[in-house]
């Protein structure tokens, strides 16, 4: 499958700075979207975006196109950085984003139907109980922690953890089938 992002990352690994600029031009809006959604603050998202591309350049040689698409790799770097920053925030601050969690879900559902991979994902989410599917989404898309999820669903943290672990294994069974 054609993967122009993967090709650009490979050229970055060969220290091609023009390719690095093209990569930024073509992918920064997506990564900014990821960082804004998770960090919720533009100034912090912009600061994180610089750090993400710094890491992309320094780690480009570790990208293996056999293991996944270029954009998936970039988003993983952006999400990991955002989660590190969220977890490093004082605990009280992490509850603030809770209100915004719900609104993206229905739109997300319709857009998920568009692609094969995403459709499969949507079908597998259907096999989970709705509140658990929502917990998985909230964690992945908004960077919610167990602490946030337990508070949001009004259950003890350990219960949340048991739920989520079971749901994830069930999700895997469906996605890998």
């Amino acid at each position: 499958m054609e993967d122009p992002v993967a090709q650009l990352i490979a050229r970055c690994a060969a220290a091609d700075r023009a390719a690095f600029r093209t990569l930024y031009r073509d992918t920064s809006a997506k990564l900014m979207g990821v960082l804004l959604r998770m960090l919720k603050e533009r100034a912090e998202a912009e600061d994180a975006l610089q750090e993400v591309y710094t890491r992309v350049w320094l780690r480009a040689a570790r990208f293996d196109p056999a293991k996944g698409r270029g954009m998936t790799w970039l988003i993983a770097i952006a999400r990991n950085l955002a989660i590190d920053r969220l977890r490093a925030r004082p605990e009280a601050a992490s509850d603030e984003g809770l209100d915004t969690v719900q609104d993206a879900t229905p739109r997300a559902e319709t857009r998920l139907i568009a692609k094969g991979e995403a459709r499969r994902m949507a079908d597998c989410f259907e096999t989970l109980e709705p509140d658990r599917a929502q917990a998985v989404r909230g964690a992945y898309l908004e960077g919610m922690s167990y602490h946030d999820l337990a508070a949001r669903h009004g259950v003890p943290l350990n219960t949340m953890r048991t739920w989520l672990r079971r749901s994830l294994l069930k999700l895997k069974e469906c996605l890998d089938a």
Partner: protein
Amino acid sequence: MTDAPLTPEEADDALAAEYVLGVLDLAERAEAEARIRRDPGFAARVGDWEARMAGLNDDFAEAPAPDLMPKIEARLFPQAPAPARQGRGFSFGWFAGAALAAVLVLATVATLAPPRPEPVATLATADRRLSYQITHFGGTLQVARVAGVPAVPGQVHQLWIIAPGASPVSLGLLEDKPLVIDYPVPPPGFIFAVSIEPEGGSPTGLPTGPVILTATVGETT
């Protein structure tokens, strides 16, 4: 769905999934990251989960990003020498031309001679009981401990580079083997620092533990 306890395999897989989802707290996350580094089987599980969850990536809407490339490049690529100025009259042009020719000759000689490690900085305590030597060699920075011992078990020395006015950027963990990083020659004024971090390195991408050594580029002994 049964409530039987997870098998060890299932527990590993659930942990990999929790790491990818990002629900772990800071300490658990640092532990999972350390495990990714030392356990290829676990790292593969994490990779599989990243691929599995990629179906949700379409949900991230694009958002216009400002052009931060100049700042990113300033962090990553230390300043190239300024181009020769034009329009200072014939004599300057001639001089510049001659100087350029001389530089080209030197450059040719330099490329013919085998490359040698160039000292960049020395990071050492005042009593020299702990010392790291940083050299530049063949497009890489090489960092070797020349005196002292690594951090105590459960901790690690992490190396950072700091451009003037910018945040520290991690260059990697200093363990028993010399650290080799693809990196250009850092210009004078950039600062190296070593901090003590939990095993696996700083969980935040910025120094979290005490900074024990610093040196400015050009400070060597």
